[in-house]
Protein backbone atom coordinates (compact mmCIF):
# COMPACT_ATOMS: atom_id res chain seq x y z
CA UNK A 1 0.00 0.00 0.00
CA UNK A 2 2.64 2.52 1.00
CA UNK A 3 4.98 1.22 -1.69
CA UNK A 4 2.46 2.51 -4.21
CA UNK A 5 2.54 5.95 -2.60
CA UNK A 6 6.31 5.94 -2.69
CA UNK A 7 6.24 5.26 -6.40
CA UNK A 8 3.72 8.08 -7.06
CA UNK A 9 5.11 11.25 -5.54
CA UNK A 10 2.18 13.37 -6.74
CA UNK A 11 -0.39 11.31 -4.84
CA UNK A 12 2.00 11.07 -1.90
CA UNK A 13 2.06 14.88 -1.83
CA UNK A 14 -1.73 15.00 -2.02
CA UNK A 15 -1.94 12.56 0.88
CA UNK A 16 0.50 14.57 2.97
CA UNK A 17 -1.47 17.74 2.22
CA UNK A 18 -4.76 16.14 3.27
CA UNK A 19 -3.32 14.86 6.55
CA UNK A 20 -1.72 18.17 7.45
CA UNK A 21 -4.70 20.24 6.30
CA UNK A 22 -7.20 18.16 8.26
CA UNK A 23 -6.71 19.97 11.54
CA UNK A 24 -7.02 23.29 9.75
CA UNK A 25 -10.17 22.11 8.00
CA UNK A 26 -11.98 21.11 11.15
CA UNK A 27 -10.75 24.08 13.17
CA UNK A 28 -11.14 26.87 10.65
CA UNK A 29 -13.72 26.02 8.01
CA UNK A 30 -16.84 25.32 10.14
CA UNK A 31 -16.21 28.35 12.34
CA UNK A 32 -15.49 30.57 9.36
CA UNK A 33 -18.61 29.41 7.56
CA UNK A 34 -20.68 30.44 10.56
CA UNK A 35 -18.90 33.60 11.67
CA UNK A 36 -18.57 35.19 8.25
CA UNK A 37 -22.33 35.34 7.70
CA UNK A 38 -23.96 38.71 8.21
CA UNK A 39 -25.55 38.95 11.64
CA UNK A 40 -29.34 39.13 11.52
CA UNK A 41 -29.44 42.87 12.11
CA UNK A 42 -26.75 43.72 9.55
CA UNK A 43 -28.09 45.76 6.67
CA UNK A 44 -26.35 47.33 3.69
CA UNK A 45 -25.64 51.06 3.88
CA UNK A 46 -28.12 53.42 2.28
CA UNK A 47 -26.82 55.81 -0.36
CA UNK A 48 -26.29 58.72 2.04
CA UNK A 49 -24.62 56.51 4.65
CA UNK A 50 -22.32 55.06 2.02
CA UNK A 51 -21.42 58.58 0.89
CA UNK A 52 -20.68 59.41 4.54
CA UNK A 53 -18.52 56.32 4.78
CA UNK A 54 -16.52 57.55 1.82
CA UNK A 55 -16.06 60.90 3.59
CA UNK A 56 -14.91 58.97 6.67
CA UNK A 57 -12.32 57.16 4.55
CA UNK A 58 -11.34 60.27 2.57
CA UNK A 59 -10.61 62.28 5.72
CA UNK A 60 -8.82 59.31 7.31
CA UNK A 61 -11.01 59.10 10.38
CA UNK A 62 -9.82 55.49 10.65
CA UNK A 63 -6.26 56.68 11.22
CA UNK A 64 -7.25 57.73 14.75
CA UNK A 65 -10.54 55.92 15.41
CA UNK A 66 -11.01 52.16 15.45
CA UNK A 67 -14.27 50.35 14.74
CA UNK A 68 -13.66 47.19 16.68
CA UNK A 69 -14.75 46.68 20.26
CA UNK A 70 -12.76 43.85 21.77
CA UNK A 71 -14.33 41.45 24.25
CA UNK A 72 -12.82 42.98 27.40
CA UNK A 73 -14.85 44.38 30.27
CA UNK A 74 -13.04 47.71 30.12
CA UNK A 75 -14.02 48.12 26.46
CA UNK A 76 -17.61 46.94 26.65
CA UNK A 77 -18.21 49.23 29.63
CA UNK A 78 -17.20 52.22 27.61
CA UNK A 79 -18.23 51.39 24.05
CA UNK A 80 -21.01 48.80 24.40
CA UNK A 81 -21.33 45.20 23.24
CA UNK A 82 -18.19 43.69 21.70
CA UNK A 83 -18.08 43.54 17.91
CA UNK A 84 -19.08 40.45 15.94
CA UNK A 85 -17.56 39.32 12.64
CA UNK A 86 -20.90 39.30 10.85
CA UNK A 87 -21.49 42.98 11.60
CA UNK A 88 -18.86 43.91 9.03
CA UNK A 89 -20.43 41.82 6.27
CA UNK A 90 -21.34 44.89 4.18
CA UNK A 91 -18.20 46.90 5.00
CA UNK A 92 -15.98 47.04 1.95
CA UNK A 93 -13.35 47.48 3.21
CA UNK A 94 -13.88 47.08 6.94
CA UNK A 95 -12.58 50.03 8.97
CA UNK A 96 -11.33 48.24 12.06
CA UNK A 97 -8.37 50.57 12.33
CA UNK A 98 -5.33 49.73 14.37
CA UNK A 99 -4.71 52.83 16.43
CA UNK A 100 -6.90 54.57 18.95
CA UNK A 101 -5.76 58.13 19.17
CA UNK A 102 -9.47 58.85 19.60
CA UNK A 103 -12.13 56.53 21.00
CA UNK A 104 -13.66 53.57 19.23
CA UNK A 105 -16.61 54.44 17.00
CA UNK A 106 -18.16 51.06 16.23
CA UNK A 107 -21.33 51.84 18.22
CA UNK A 108 -21.12 55.61 18.36
CA UNK A 109 -24.67 55.85 16.96
CA UNK A 110 -25.96 54.48 20.25
CA UNK A 111 -24.72 57.29 22.44
CA UNK A 112 -24.19 60.42 20.34
CA UNK A 113 -26.65 62.56 18.44
CA UNK A 114 -26.56 64.51 15.18
CA UNK A 115 -26.31 67.90 16.88
CA UNK A 116 -23.48 66.64 19.07
CA UNK A 117 -21.52 65.47 16.02
CA UNK A 118 -22.07 68.79 14.27
CA UNK A 119 -20.88 70.77 17.31
CA UNK A 120 -17.95 68.44 17.77
CA UNK A 121 -16.76 68.42 14.17
CA UNK A 122 -17.05 72.20 14.00
CA UNK A 123 -15.04 72.75 17.17
CA UNK A 124 -14.08 69.63 19.13
CA UNK A 125 -12.92 71.44 22.26
CA UNK A 126 -16.30 73.17 22.62
CA UNK A 127 -17.80 69.88 23.77
CA UNK A 128 -14.76 67.86 24.83
CA UNK A 129 -12.34 70.09 26.74
CA UNK A 130 -8.75 69.13 26.06
CA UNK A 131 -9.60 67.16 22.94
CA UNK A 132 -6.73 66.94 20.45
CA UNK A 133 -9.03 66.20 17.54
CA UNK A 134 -8.73 68.80 14.79
CA UNK A 135 -11.81 70.70 13.59
CA UNK A 136 -13.30 69.56 10.29
CA UNK A 137 -14.92 72.80 9.17
CA UNK A 138 -14.38 72.06 5.47
CA UNK A 139 -16.93 69.26 5.80
CA UNK A 140 -19.61 71.89 6.40
CA UNK A 141 -19.06 73.41 2.95
CA UNK A 142 -17.75 70.53 0.80
CA UNK A 143 -20.50 68.84 -1.18
CA UNK A 144 -21.06 65.10 -0.89
CA UNK A 145 -20.32 63.00 -3.95
CA UNK A 146 -23.49 60.95 -4.27
CA UNK A 147 -22.60 59.64 -7.73
CA UNK A 148 -19.53 57.77 -6.53
CA UNK A 149 -21.48 56.41 -3.58
CA UNK A 150 -24.21 55.21 -5.94
CA UNK A 151 -21.61 53.60 -8.18
CA UNK A 152 -20.21 51.74 -5.17
CA UNK A 153 -23.65 50.62 -4.02
CA UNK A 154 -24.62 49.42 -7.49
CA UNK A 155 -21.31 47.61 -7.90
CA UNK A 156 -21.55 45.70 -4.65
CA UNK A 157 -25.18 44.92 -5.41
CA UNK A 158 -24.36 43.45 -8.83
CA UNK A 159 -20.96 41.89 -8.15
CA UNK A 160 -21.20 40.75 -4.53
CA UNK A 161 -24.98 40.30 -4.40
CA UNK A 162 -25.35 42.72 -1.49
CA UNK A 163 -29.07 42.64 -0.67
CA UNK A 164 -30.21 46.08 -1.83
CA UNK A 165 -33.86 46.19 -2.96
CA UNK A 166 -34.55 42.95 -1.15
CA UNK A 167 -36.77 41.85 1.67
CA UNK A 168 -34.17 40.56 4.11
CA UNK A 169 -36.24 39.91 7.22
CA UNK A 170 -39.32 38.50 5.51
CA UNK A 171 -41.79 41.20 6.56
CA UNK A 172 -42.84 41.82 2.96
CA UNK A 173 -41.04 45.17 2.73
CA UNK A 174 -37.81 46.08 1.00
CA UNK A 175 -35.29 46.75 3.77
CA UNK A 176 -32.70 48.89 2.03
CA UNK A 177 -33.99 50.33 -1.25
CA UNK A 178 -31.53 51.49 -3.87
CA UNK A 179 -33.30 51.52 -7.24
CA UNK A 180 -32.27 53.92 -9.99
CA UNK A 181 -29.92 56.83 -9.32
CA UNK A 182 -32.80 59.31 -9.34
CA UNK A 183 -34.80 57.31 -6.80
CA UNK A 184 -31.78 56.77 -4.58
CA UNK A 185 -30.84 60.44 -4.80
CA UNK A 186 -34.34 61.52 -3.83
CA UNK A 187 -34.28 59.29 -0.75
CA UNK A 188 -30.79 60.50 0.14
CA UNK A 189 -31.99 64.11 0.06
CA UNK A 190 -34.98 63.34 2.29
CA UNK A 191 -32.68 61.56 4.73
CA UNK A 192 -30.13 64.38 4.56
CA UNK A 193 -32.77 66.98 5.34
CA UNK A 194 -33.79 65.03 8.44
CA UNK A 195 -30.19 64.82 9.63
CA UNK A 196 -29.53 68.48 8.82
CA UNK A 197 -32.57 69.51 10.86
CA UNK A 198 -31.35 67.37 13.76
CA UNK A 199 -28.04 69.24 13.77
CA UNK A 200 -29.99 72.49 14.36
CA UNK A 201 -27.72 74.37 11.99
CA UNK A 202 -29.65 76.47 9.52
CA UNK A 203 -26.73 76.67 7.08
CA UNK A 204 -26.78 72.88 6.66
CA UNK A 205 -30.57 72.80 6.18
CA UNK A 206 -30.34 75.59 3.60
CA UNK A 207 -27.60 73.78 1.69
CA UNK A 208 -29.61 70.56 1.53
CA UNK A 209 -32.67 72.48 0.40
CA UNK A 210 -30.56 74.13 -2.29
CA UNK A 211 -29.72 70.68 -3.67
CA UNK A 212 -26.28 70.22 -2.14
CA UNK A 213 -25.62 67.80 0.70
CA UNK A 214 -22.70 68.96 2.85
CA UNK A 215 -20.20 66.20 3.63
CA UNK A 216 -20.84 66.58 7.35
CA UNK A 217 -24.49 65.56 6.89
CA UNK A 218 -23.53 62.37 5.05
CA UNK A 219 -20.86 61.64 7.66
CA UNK A 220 -23.32 62.12 10.54
CA UNK A 221 -25.83 59.84 8.79
CA UNK A 222 -23.07 57.22 8.63
CA UNK A 223 -21.99 57.72 12.25
CA UNK A 224 -25.58 57.51 13.50
CA UNK A 225 -25.88 54.28 11.58
CA UNK A 226 -22.97 52.72 13.54
CA UNK A 227 -24.76 50.81 16.30
Amino acid at each position, binding site marked *: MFGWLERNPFFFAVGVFVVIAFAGLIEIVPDFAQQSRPVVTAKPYSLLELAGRQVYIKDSCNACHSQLIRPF*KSETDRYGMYSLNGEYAYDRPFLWGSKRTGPDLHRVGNYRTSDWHANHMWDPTS*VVPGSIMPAYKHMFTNVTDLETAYAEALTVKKVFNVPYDKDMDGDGKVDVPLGSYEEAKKRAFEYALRVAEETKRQDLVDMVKAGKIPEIVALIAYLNRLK
Partner: protein
Amino acid sequence: MNWLSDNVNQLALLGAAAILILTIGVAAKYFKQIKEGKSEGELKEENWDGIGEYKNNSPIGWSLAFIGTIIWGIWYWLVGYPLDAYSQIGEYNEEVKAYQAKFESKWANPTKEDLLGMGEGVFLVQCSPCHGIDGTGIEGKAQDLTRRLLKEEVLDVINRGSAALGNPNGQLGYPMGMMPPGLLSGADAEAVAEYVANGFKGNDKGAELFQSACASCHGPDGRGMNGMAPNLREYDDKIISAVLEHGKRGIIGTMPSFKGRLTPVQVKAVATYIRSLSEGA
Protein backbone atom coordinates in the same frame (compact mmCIF):
# COMPACT_ATOMS: atom_id res chain seq x y z
CA MET B 1 34.68 42.79 42.24
CA ASN B 2 35.32 39.15 41.69
CA TRP B 3 32.72 37.90 39.22
CA LEU B 4 33.22 34.29 40.34
CA SER B 5 31.86 35.06 43.79
CA ASP B 6 28.36 35.25 42.28
CA ASN B 7 26.74 31.83 42.51
CA VAL B 8 24.68 32.31 39.35
CA ASN B 9 27.90 32.93 37.44
CA GLN B 10 29.45 29.87 39.05
CA LEU B 11 26.51 27.71 38.06
CA ALA B 12 26.54 29.08 34.52
CA LEU B 13 30.23 28.34 34.19
CA LEU B 14 29.72 24.83 35.55
CA GLY B 15 26.87 24.27 33.10
CA ALA B 16 28.95 25.53 30.20
CA ALA B 17 31.77 23.18 31.12
CA ALA B 18 29.36 20.23 31.42
CA ILE B 19 27.86 20.98 28.02
CA LEU B 20 31.30 21.27 26.46
CA ILE B 21 32.51 17.96 27.96
CA LEU B 22 29.32 16.14 26.96
CA THR B 23 29.49 17.52 23.41
CA ILE B 24 33.08 16.45 23.00
CA GLY B 25 32.35 13.03 24.49
CA VAL B 26 29.32 12.35 22.30
CA ALA B 27 31.07 13.65 19.19
CA ALA B 28 34.10 11.45 19.93
CA LYS B 29 31.86 8.39 20.41
CA TYR B 30 30.22 8.85 17.00
CA PHE B 31 33.50 9.64 15.26
CA LYS B 32 34.83 6.37 16.67
CA GLN B 33 31.73 4.50 15.54
CA ILE B 34 31.96 5.95 12.01
CA LYS B 35 35.64 4.98 11.77
CA GLU B 36 35.52 1.55 13.36
CA GLY B 37 31.91 0.43 13.49
CA LYS B 38 30.74 -2.45 11.34
CA SER B 39 27.19 -2.98 10.22
CA GLU B 40 25.56 -6.07 11.59
CA GLY B 41 22.30 -7.83 11.11
CA GLU B 42 20.22 -9.15 8.23
CA LEU B 43 19.31 -7.01 5.23
CA LYS B 44 15.83 -6.81 3.80
CA GLU B 45 15.34 -8.08 0.28
CA GLU B 46 14.28 -4.70 -1.10
CA ASN B 47 16.97 -2.22 -1.98
CA TRP B 48 16.90 1.12 -3.72
CA ASP B 49 19.76 1.76 -6.12
CA GLY B 50 22.05 -0.25 -3.89
CA ILE B 51 20.89 1.28 -0.62
CA GLY B 52 19.51 -1.43 1.63
CA GLU B 53 17.62 -1.56 4.91
CA TYR B 54 18.13 -3.79 7.97
CA LYS B 55 15.39 -6.09 9.15
CA ASN B 56 15.15 -4.40 12.53
CA ASN B 57 11.95 -4.07 14.50
CA SER B 58 10.96 -0.54 15.43
CA PRO B 59 12.04 0.29 19.00
CA ILE B 60 9.19 -0.45 21.42
CA GLY B 61 9.23 3.01 23.00
CA TRP B 62 8.99 4.66 19.61
CA SER B 63 6.13 2.36 18.52
CA LEU B 64 4.15 3.07 21.68
CA ALA B 65 4.64 6.79 21.26
CA PHE B 66 3.54 6.56 17.63
CA ILE B 67 0.38 4.59 18.42
CA GLY B 68 -0.33 6.86 21.38
CA THR B 69 -0.08 9.93 19.16
CA ILE B 70 -2.56 8.42 16.69
CA ILE B 71 -5.05 7.67 19.46
CA TRP B 72 -4.59 11.15 20.95
CA GLY B 73 -5.04 12.66 17.50
CA ILE B 74 -8.37 10.90 16.98
CA TRP B 75 -9.53 11.96 20.43
CA TYR B 76 -8.44 15.56 19.81
CA TRP B 77 -10.12 15.80 16.42
CA LEU B 78 -13.40 14.29 17.50
CA VAL B 79 -13.74 15.24 21.17
CA GLY B 80 -10.92 17.38 22.52
CA TYR B 81 -11.05 20.29 20.12
CA PRO B 82 -14.77 20.41 19.28
CA LEU B 83 -15.97 20.11 22.87
CA ASP B 84 -13.26 21.84 24.80
CA ALA B 85 -11.90 24.56 22.55
CA TYR B 86 -10.68 27.85 23.94
CA SER B 87 -13.22 30.60 23.50
CA GLN B 88 -12.38 34.26 23.75
CA ILE B 89 -16.03 35.11 24.37
CA GLY B 90 -16.17 32.43 27.06
CA GLU B 91 -13.21 34.02 28.80
CA TYR B 92 -14.86 37.44 28.46
CA ASN B 93 -18.09 36.12 29.99
CA GLU B 94 -16.19 34.70 32.94
CA GLU B 95 -14.25 37.92 33.38
CA VAL B 96 -17.46 39.94 33.41
CA LYS B 97 -19.19 37.53 35.78
CA ALA B 98 -16.29 37.59 38.23
CA TYR B 99 -16.10 41.36 38.03
CA GLN B 100 -19.83 41.83 38.59
CA ALA B 101 -19.79 39.54 41.61
CA LYS B 102 -16.90 41.50 43.08
CA PHE B 103 -18.53 44.82 42.21
CA GLU B 104 -21.83 43.86 43.78
CA SER B 105 -20.34 42.56 46.99
CA LYS B 106 -18.08 45.58 47.31
CA TRP B 107 -20.86 48.11 46.71
CA ALA B 108 -23.73 46.27 48.39
CA ASN B 109 -24.21 49.11 50.89
CA PRO B 110 -22.51 52.17 49.45
CA THR B 111 -22.26 55.31 51.53
CA LYS B 112 -23.20 58.67 50.06
CA GLU B 113 -19.51 59.49 49.55
CA ASP B 114 -19.03 56.22 47.65
CA LEU B 115 -21.99 57.03 45.41
CA LEU B 116 -20.76 60.58 44.79
CA GLY B 117 -17.31 59.34 43.81
CA MET B 118 -18.64 56.60 41.57
CA GLY B 119 -21.27 58.93 40.11
CA GLU B 120 -18.67 61.52 39.23
CA GLY B 121 -16.58 58.89 37.45
CA VAL B 122 -19.51 57.55 35.46
CA PHE B 123 -20.72 61.06 34.70
CA LEU B 124 -17.34 62.15 33.33
CA VAL B 125 -17.10 59.13 31.03
CA GLN B 126 -20.70 58.68 29.89
CA CYS B 127 -22.49 61.99 30.38
CA SER B 128 -19.96 64.82 30.16
CA PRO B 129 -19.44 64.71 26.36
CA CYS B 130 -22.95 66.18 25.99
CA HIS B 131 -23.79 67.67 29.40
CA GLY B 132 -20.33 69.14 29.92
CA ILE B 133 -17.85 68.28 32.64
CA ASP B 134 -19.63 70.67 35.02
CA GLY B 135 -23.08 69.37 34.04
CA THR B 136 -24.34 72.73 32.80
CA GLY B 137 -25.14 71.39 29.34
CA ILE B 138 -22.47 73.35 27.41
CA GLU B 139 -24.38 76.56 26.73
CA GLY B 140 -27.74 75.02 25.98
CA LYS B 141 -26.48 72.12 23.86
CA ALA B 142 -27.91 69.66 26.40
CA GLN B 143 -29.96 69.80 29.57
CA ASP B 144 -28.40 71.91 32.32
CA LEU B 145 -28.29 69.43 35.17
CA THR B 146 -27.52 72.03 37.81
CA ARG B 147 -31.18 73.10 37.73
CA ARG B 148 -34.42 71.22 37.23
CA LEU B 149 -36.71 72.94 34.72
CA LEU B 150 -36.86 76.09 32.65
CA LYS B 151 -40.10 77.86 31.84
CA GLU B 152 -39.78 77.02 28.11
CA GLU B 153 -39.30 73.36 28.94
CA VAL B 154 -42.41 73.19 31.10
CA LEU B 155 -44.42 75.07 28.48
CA ASP B 156 -43.18 72.73 25.76
CA VAL B 157 -44.38 69.68 27.66
CA ILE B 158 -47.73 71.26 28.50
CA ASN B 159 -48.28 72.15 24.85
CA ARG B 160 -46.99 68.97 23.22
CA GLY B 161 -47.72 66.44 25.97
CA SER B 162 -45.33 63.76 27.08
CA ALA B 163 -45.47 62.10 23.67
CA ALA B 164 -42.83 64.67 22.85
CA LEU B 165 -40.64 63.24 25.59
CA GLY B 166 -39.31 59.80 26.25
CA ASN B 167 -38.54 57.30 23.55
CA PRO B 168 -40.37 57.35 20.19
CA ASN B 169 -43.40 55.81 21.92
CA GLY B 170 -43.41 58.68 24.38
CA GLN B 171 -42.76 56.43 27.34
CA LEU B 172 -40.59 57.15 30.32
CA GLY B 173 -42.08 54.15 32.09
CA TYR B 174 -44.02 55.95 34.84
CA PRO B 175 -47.15 54.20 36.20
CA MET B 176 -49.26 57.28 35.49
CA GLY B 177 -48.53 56.83 31.78
CA MET B 178 -48.59 59.54 29.16
CA MET B 179 -49.42 63.15 29.76
CA PRO B 180 -51.90 64.43 27.16
CA PRO B 181 -51.05 67.65 25.32
CA GLY B 182 -52.90 70.87 26.02
CA LEU B 183 -54.01 70.33 29.63
CA LEU B 184 -53.61 74.07 29.97
CA SER B 185 -53.17 76.80 27.41
CA GLY B 186 -52.38 80.43 26.99
CA ALA B 187 -51.84 82.50 30.09
CA ASP B 188 -52.75 79.58 32.37
CA ALA B 189 -50.00 77.43 30.92
CA GLU B 190 -47.56 80.33 31.24
CA ALA B 191 -48.47 80.86 34.88
CA VAL B 192 -47.94 77.19 35.78
CA ALA B 193 -44.69 77.06 33.81
CA GLU B 194 -43.41 80.07 35.66
CA TYR B 195 -44.46 78.63 39.02
CA VAL B 196 -42.78 75.26 38.33
CA ALA B 197 -39.63 76.74 36.83
CA ASN B 198 -39.32 79.11 39.78
CA GLY B 199 -39.04 76.18 42.16
CA PHE B 200 -42.71 76.13 43.18
CA LYS B 201 -42.62 79.69 44.51
CA GLY B 202 -44.25 82.97 43.63
CA ASN B 203 -47.07 83.20 41.09
CA ASP B 204 -50.17 82.38 43.17
CA LYS B 205 -52.26 81.84 40.07
CA GLY B 206 -49.76 79.23 38.86
CA ALA B 207 -49.82 77.51 42.23
CA GLU B 208 -53.60 77.33 42.15
CA LEU B 209 -53.70 76.00 38.60
CA PHE B 210 -50.98 73.47 39.41
CA GLN B 211 -53.13 72.01 42.19
CA SER B 212 -56.12 71.63 39.87
CA ALA B 213 -54.41 70.55 36.61
CA CYS B 214 -51.14 68.87 37.53
CA ALA B 215 -51.25 67.70 41.13
CA SER B 216 -53.39 64.62 40.45
CA CYS B 217 -50.38 62.96 38.82
CA HIS B 218 -47.34 64.97 39.89
CA GLY B 219 -48.56 65.30 43.46
CA PRO B 220 -49.53 68.47 45.36
CA ASP B 221 -45.87 69.20 46.04
CA GLY B 222 -44.76 68.34 42.46
CA ARG B 223 -42.55 65.50 43.65
CA GLY B 224 -44.38 62.92 41.54
CA MET B 225 -46.03 60.95 44.39
CA ASN B 226 -43.14 58.56 45.01
CA GLY B 227 -42.40 57.67 41.43
CA MET B 228 -45.94 57.61 40.04
CA ALA B 229 -45.10 60.52 37.73
CA PRO B 230 -41.92 62.52 37.11
CA ASN B 231 -40.63 64.59 40.00
CA LEU B 232 -40.69 68.23 38.90
CA ARG B 233 -38.67 69.61 41.79
CA GLU B 234 -35.46 67.67 41.67
CA TYR B 235 -33.67 64.86 39.88
CA ASP B 236 -34.66 61.87 41.95
CA ASP B 237 -33.34 58.35 41.35
CA LYS B 238 -36.49 57.44 39.47
CA ILE B 239 -36.29 60.12 36.80
CA ILE B 240 -32.57 59.57 36.23
CA SER B 241 -33.03 55.83 35.80
CA ALA B 242 -36.12 56.36 33.60
CA VAL B 243 -34.30 58.76 31.29
CA LEU B 244 -31.20 56.55 31.17
CA GLU B 245 -33.34 53.59 30.24
CA HIS B 246 -35.67 55.18 27.70
CA GLY B 247 -33.68 58.12 26.43
CA LYS B 248 -35.43 61.44 26.14
CA ARG B 249 -36.59 63.92 23.59
CA GLY B 250 -37.36 67.46 24.52
CA ILE B 251 -37.17 71.05 23.47
CA ILE B 252 -33.36 70.88 23.41
CA GLY B 253 -32.94 67.73 21.38
CA THR B 254 -32.67 63.99 21.74
CA MET B 255 -30.81 62.02 24.36
CA PRO B 256 -30.14 58.39 23.37
CA SER B 257 -31.07 55.53 25.67
CA PHE B 258 -28.30 54.15 27.88
CA LYS B 259 -30.20 50.97 28.61
CA GLY B 260 -28.01 48.16 29.87
CA ARG B 261 -24.85 50.25 29.99
CA LEU B 262 -24.92 50.96 33.72
CA THR B 263 -25.61 48.71 36.69
CA PRO B 264 -28.35 49.69 39.17
CA VAL B 265 -25.71 50.90 41.65
CA GLN B 266 -24.09 53.05 38.98
CA VAL B 267 -27.47 54.56 38.07
CA LYS B 268 -28.05 55.40 41.72
CA ALA B 269 -24.56 56.86 41.88
CA VAL B 270 -25.14 59.06 38.82
CA ALA B 271 -28.45 60.23 40.28
CA THR B 272 -26.74 61.10 43.56
CA TYR B 273 -24.00 62.97 41.72
CA ILE B 274 -26.47 64.89 39.53
CA ARG B 275 -28.48 65.91 42.63
CA SER B 276 -25.28 67.14 44.21
CA LEU B 277 -24.76 69.47 41.23
CA SER B 278 -27.96 71.40 41.86
CA GLU B 279 -27.53 71.33 45.64
CA GLY B 280 -24.12 72.90 45.29
CA ALA B 281 -25.39 75.64 42.99
